């Protein structure tokens, strides 16, 4: 007979690998679009990221004397590397992907004690590390154009061939540069910004961050499958859109409108796939809303007044640090108790 087991003697058909697999599935449309848009270099970079994460995680878990298979099979390392790859410039050299992936799974996750223990989102921690350490490689964008052939792609990814004639700037980077030259928004955006292109994702940007509509579909799929809830994503989009709307109304020539903000940079990926990481976000629905709002506001502030054109990664890490604090103060009310935890008073009849 089996050892005695405690109730319940039934279980919902869920598991960690299933959760991670569903998220990967939700990411697939935007990823495939990125492959189509940027061609072979994007595929190379994505593959290198995943391989580096798997090998790196296997190595450190083995060093800890733990079983490697269950750790790799939980799918969290692959998801981290996948998210990181989507946030990289598609023509970035291979060592950027390797360094980033290793940093994400080793320093970002395993050093903290493995799955569920890390304070910061590993993918965003790696992205911030790369951005600070290798600003040139991390901001070399290309305009979606005739995708290079496979052999050319190997030269781009593995031999760091310069991007002659293809270099471009992301919308947010372009606006920031134009501001420093004293050029207003109306001029800066003309010819650079077309909402339909932004929506579909045919723009310069990170490997998998450009297709706003596909990321939105992926996010809605996750909400429908109850992997995530609407609270954090909606709050983050509000956190960006509301101040953008207000300031745009005050000075349209200096502050970009909500649509520009919503459709550019890593906002969609961040709102639906990054800040919904359960490990590094608050526990309660209300806490997640506050968290998302903070991520959105900070993103908008960094984009508008900060030194970097894009702020999602910084905003997420700042709010990650605030997560234990949010969890400390935002708790559900317990049945039969008031908000402060005291027993409800007995009605005298």
């Amino acid at each position, binding site marked *: 007979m089996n050892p005695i*087991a405690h109730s319940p*003697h039934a279980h919902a058909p869920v598991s960690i690998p299933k959760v991670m697999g569903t998220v990967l599935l939700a990411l697939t449309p935007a990823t495939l679009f990125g492959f189509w848009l940027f061609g072979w270099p994007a595929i190379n970079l994505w593959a290198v990221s995943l391989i580096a994460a798997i090998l790196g995680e296997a190595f450190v878990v083995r060093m800890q004397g733990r079983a490697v298979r269950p750790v790799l099979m939980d799918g969290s390392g692959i998801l981290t590397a996948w998210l990181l790859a989507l946030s990289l410039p598609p023509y970035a050299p291979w060592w950027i992907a390797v360094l980033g992936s290793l940093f994400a799974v080793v320093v970002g996750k395993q050093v903290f004690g493995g799955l569920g223990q890390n304070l910061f989102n590993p993918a965003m921690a790696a992205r911030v590390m790369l951005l600070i350490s290798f600003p040139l490689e991390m901001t070399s964008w290309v305009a979606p154009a005739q995708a290079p052939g496979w052999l050319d792609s190997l030269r781009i990814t593995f031999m760091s061939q310069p991007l002659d004639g293809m270099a471009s700037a992301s919308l947010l980077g372009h606006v920031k540069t134009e501001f420093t030259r004293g050029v207003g928004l109306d001029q800066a955006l003309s010819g650079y910004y077309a909402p339909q292109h932004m929506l579909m994702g045919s723009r310069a940007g990170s490997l998998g961050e450009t297709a706003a509509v596909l990321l939105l579909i992926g996010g809605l799929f996750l909400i429908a499958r109850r992997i995530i809830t609407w609270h954090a994503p909606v709050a983050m989009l509000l956190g960006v859109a509301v101040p953008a709307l207000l300031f745009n109304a005050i000075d349209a020539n200096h502050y970009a409108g909500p649509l520009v903000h919503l459709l550019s940079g890593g906002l969609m990926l961040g709102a639906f796939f990054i800040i919904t990481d359960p*490990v590094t976000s608050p526990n309660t629905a209300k806490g997640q809303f506050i968290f998302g709002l903070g991520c959105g506001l900070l993103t908008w502030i960094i984009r508008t007044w900060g030194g970097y054109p894009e702020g999602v990664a910084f905003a997420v890490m700042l709010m990650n640090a605030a997560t234990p604090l949010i969890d400390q103060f935002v708790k559900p009310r317990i049945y039969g*108790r008031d908000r402060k935890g005291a027993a409800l008073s007995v009605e005298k009849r």
Partner: protein
Amino acid sequence: MLSAKLFKLRGGVHPEGRKNLSAERHIRTLPLPQKLFVPLQQHIGAPASPVVNVGDKVLKGQLIAVAQGAVSSSIHAPTSGVIVALGDHVAPHPSGLPVPTITLQSDGAENWIACETIADPFALTPEDIAARVGAAGIVGLGGATFPSALKLNLSRSSGVQTLIMNGGECEPYLTCDDRIMRERAAEIVEGIRLIAYAVAAQEILVGIEDNKPEAIAAMQAASVDTPVKVVAMPSMYPMGSEKQIIQVLTGKEVPAGGRPADIGVLVHNVATAYAVQQAIRFGKPLLSRLVTLSGGAIKTPCNVEALIGTPVEELIAFADGYAQPAARMVLGGPMMGQQFTNTNVPVVKGTSGVLALTASEIGQAEPSPCIRCSTCIRACPVGLMPVEMVSRIRASDLAAAVDFGLKDCIACGSCSYVCPAHIPLVHYFNYAKGDLAAQERTKLKQEATKKLADARNERIARIERERAEAAARRKAAREAKAAKAAAEKAAEEVA
């Protein structure tokens, strides 16, 4: 009647019901077993004390063990026969340890005691009804097995506004309440009215989950022209938990650490109402109960009326045995029931189901690390944060776990059920509750010991002090005597 206002409930889960396995099977009476094993403790409180001896001949319904103390319940002979043993028998508990049990050899005659039939039970006083319910050995048949008479008396003294009859049966697989409501609705409604009369309730609500439309229809038909109001509740686990059914039907919450009576509510199970009706109207004590036999490993799932003390083995044989080897045997429902390993365990007053589950039904898997997905927080009907509680318990910080609401946990298992990491959360909570109780007992013991030790030290100090004082007194007396003698001697010499 179905349009009653329902209130919102927090959390909850929707496990696969699997009630269709046995829901359409009529209640059948189990053939009379040869031997019945009747434990002395089948209820919350003190075990009953036997009033028969080995060799005694007993009649069906005769008192064989009497309630002891304030919280206890009497036990009656389930059939006529001879008492063959007063000893230990395997308990319906995961440990399978033996517990004091009366063993009754059936004579096959089913000779009843003389039962008093009452034509108009509403002519009895409320006190009399409670006394008769107590004498019949009736306990809460929903599974909690709290002595019903005590609940009636406590409720009458504190005043009850609303009587809620629990027909939720939210546990998967179980269909015995469903069947009893379909087949014995008139008796149940009379029982409900008797309970309401005994506690002077002004409002009577029968809550039934909407996955039992036939039971709802039967109960409605039986309660026409009575103050009994049947309410369909959404199907959700744990809708049939006392605190949750109160919340969904009245919008009120039982204060933490309190009882439903504190907010003028009394909750009884529908099967208990049937037992009350049988006891008051026909003078029949509680001798049997309905049990659902189900699970993927049972050949013919069904609902049976089994005498208290019937070995579970005989129930399984009645259901044509196993369809395949059972991965786990469970008494009660799968969400809160207890595993058992010895099929010799008897049916007791709280046995609502006997399940033989297959591995795929259990869905057990090795626990993996918590990803803080907070599914458990969304599932908790009480508003707890299981993810936080379990991390505190793992660190042996029980005080912090209590701050997160450990003592408010109703152990419904919703969190464990939904956890994608398969962490046995409720197991941790029950372990911590036990540890906490042990710690509190140890603390009380230590305080008592300290008090005794302090008293002893003080006593020893006092005795020493008194001894020293006595010695000093004696010394002083001796010296005074010597001085006196010396003075007398000197005086003599002078003289």
